[in-house]
């Protein structure tokens, strides 16, 4: 039996097989079903999955943020402005939105250098709140409460939009998963999470890794926000606001399982799907998610993904015996 880390090679290739299977379904199903609504749900899920993963990568170095909507909304508004007001090409607008957000993420690392724990989380929340207020106030530029409309989408075909979003999500997932779990950074992240001071005393330049995660988190949140704006063709201050946007991403990640990358992506799909099935009870949606996330936090702290993957591992091993 060849060992890869501490799991057998057979198990690893089995879970890769399951993953491949799921990916194939996700590619084929929308084309087969030809249902605009379900495809829309899947597209939205893909976008939020990118957003959730971007929050999660921050958690890899213990940088809990309660204001991640700041990056999402910033990119969304930038893209909206460039696209709708200045009539720039959708892809250029998206790229610009992502680039600016990435730079801002990088720049924030300086004032946020010494912040840890609650201070970090709430300073981020403060950013999101200030941004929301600012956007609402400068209504001649940003459209105030109403927001910006008339954004030109990439393409008008709903299926094509799905494949764009799904493709970007898949690429992001693979990239972030690789960096977080399968690269030389993975062990360092784990060490920093475990004991930052011990890591420093062994020569790990901790602030560089925190910076890496912050930039990645900002960039991918920006990516999600830009695509969101382009797909939905409208933005309003909600995309920057703590509630609902940060609330959603925190809930999705909690449900899916923090610092697993795949977990939050899964959580996004779960939440958005529940979203559509509870259409009648629209008003109690966020309440339900909040309560669910609380229950999971108290009783199932690993999140859905961890328990799911443990269950799958267990079933596979049981079958081999």
């Amino acid at each position, binding site marked *: 039996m060849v060992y890869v880390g501490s799991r057998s090679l057979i198990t690893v290739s089995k879970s890769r097989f399951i993953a491949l299977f799921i990916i194939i379904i996700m590619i084929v199903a929308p084309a087969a079903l030809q249902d605009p609504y379900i495809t829309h749900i899947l597209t939205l899920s893909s976008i939020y999955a990118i957003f959730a993963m971007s929050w999660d990568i921050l958690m890899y170095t213990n940088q809990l943020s309660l204001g991640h909507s700041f990056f999402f909304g910033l990119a969304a508004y930038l893209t909206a402005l460039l696209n709708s007001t200045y009539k720039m090409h959708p892809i250029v607008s998206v790229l610009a939105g992502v680039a600016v957000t990435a730079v801002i993420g990088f720049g924030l690392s300086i004032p946020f250098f010494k912040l840890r724990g609650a201070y970090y989380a709430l300073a981020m929340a403060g950013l999101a709140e200030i941004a929301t207020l600012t956007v609402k106030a400068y209504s001649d530029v940003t459209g105030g409460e109403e927001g910006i409309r008339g954004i030109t989408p990439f393409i008008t075909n709903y299926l094509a939009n799905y494949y764009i979003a799904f493709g970007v999500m898949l690429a992001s997932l693979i990239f972030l998963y690789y960096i977080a779990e399968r690269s030389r950074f993975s062990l360092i992240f784990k060490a920093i999470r475990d004991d930052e*001071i011990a890591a420093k*005393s*062994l020569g790990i330049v901790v602030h560089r890794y925190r910076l890496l995660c912050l930039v990645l988190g900002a960039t991918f949140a920006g990516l999600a926000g830009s695509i969101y704006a382009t797909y939905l063709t409208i933005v309003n201050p909600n995309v920057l606001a703590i509630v609902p946007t940060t609330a959603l991403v925190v809930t999705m990640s909690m449900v899916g399982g923090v610092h697993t990358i795949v977990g939050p992506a899964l959580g996004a799909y779960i939440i958005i799907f529940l979203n559509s099935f509870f259409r009648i009870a629209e008003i109690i949606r966020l309440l339900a998610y909040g309560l669910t996330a609380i229950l999971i936090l108290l009783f199932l702290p690993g999140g859905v993904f961890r328990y799911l993957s443990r269950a799958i591992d267990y079933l596979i091993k049981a079958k081999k015996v």
Partner: protein
Amino acid sequence: MPLLEVKNISKSFGGLAAIKNVSFNVEKGELVGIIGPNGAGKSTLFNLISGIYHPDTGRILFKGEDITRMEPYELVRKGIARSWQIVRPFRNLTVEENIKVAFYGGVLKESGLDYNQRLEEILQTTGLLPYREQLAKNLPQGYLKRLEVARAVATGAELLMLDEPFAGLRVDEIKGLMSLITTLHNRGLTLLIIEHVVRSLLELTKRVLVMHEGRLIKEGTPEEVKRDKMVIEAYFGEESEVA
């Protein structure tokens, strides 16, 4: 050129002078002990050399380079590693992973050594081989101390600073750790060791520095130090030796 040169360093906290004008050198390949009663400033001295604090006055040189104001992680890159009196393992990582982290932080990354081989060597030397896949939080204290040393060695450091490595260990564990330290010393590592368990330390080392109230009051061989009047006075009434 001495490996480490400490020149006239002083440090005060608030109004309290913790280190007063301390100077000494450590030659390459030496094993130097630092002893002294509680509150003498031994740990502060370590913290000053390893970059946790910076001295108010004076300089510290390593291989001729001025390291006085460097940060801890820079010093590891230069080749100085320290272990902690109260161990700080990565509790949720395995013994193996704990050591691997040190590879990422240390000097060796520049030389492109074969890490797998080095890992095996270190596990072998420190006697941690049977525990390699155990989570650090499940390890008994004696082995946690070995892990501390293993990690410091894994950074590829030339100068190893051990802060009370024998604290809290049983007699047999102390003997095991002593032989590990001797092995490392024989391999060419330079060691600077703070210890309260004076008897064991005096067996290991040929040169001892004695600190008292922030000053270096005596420097010499274990025999000289044991007989010195000032040292005996400083320790008078102190429970400093393990029975």
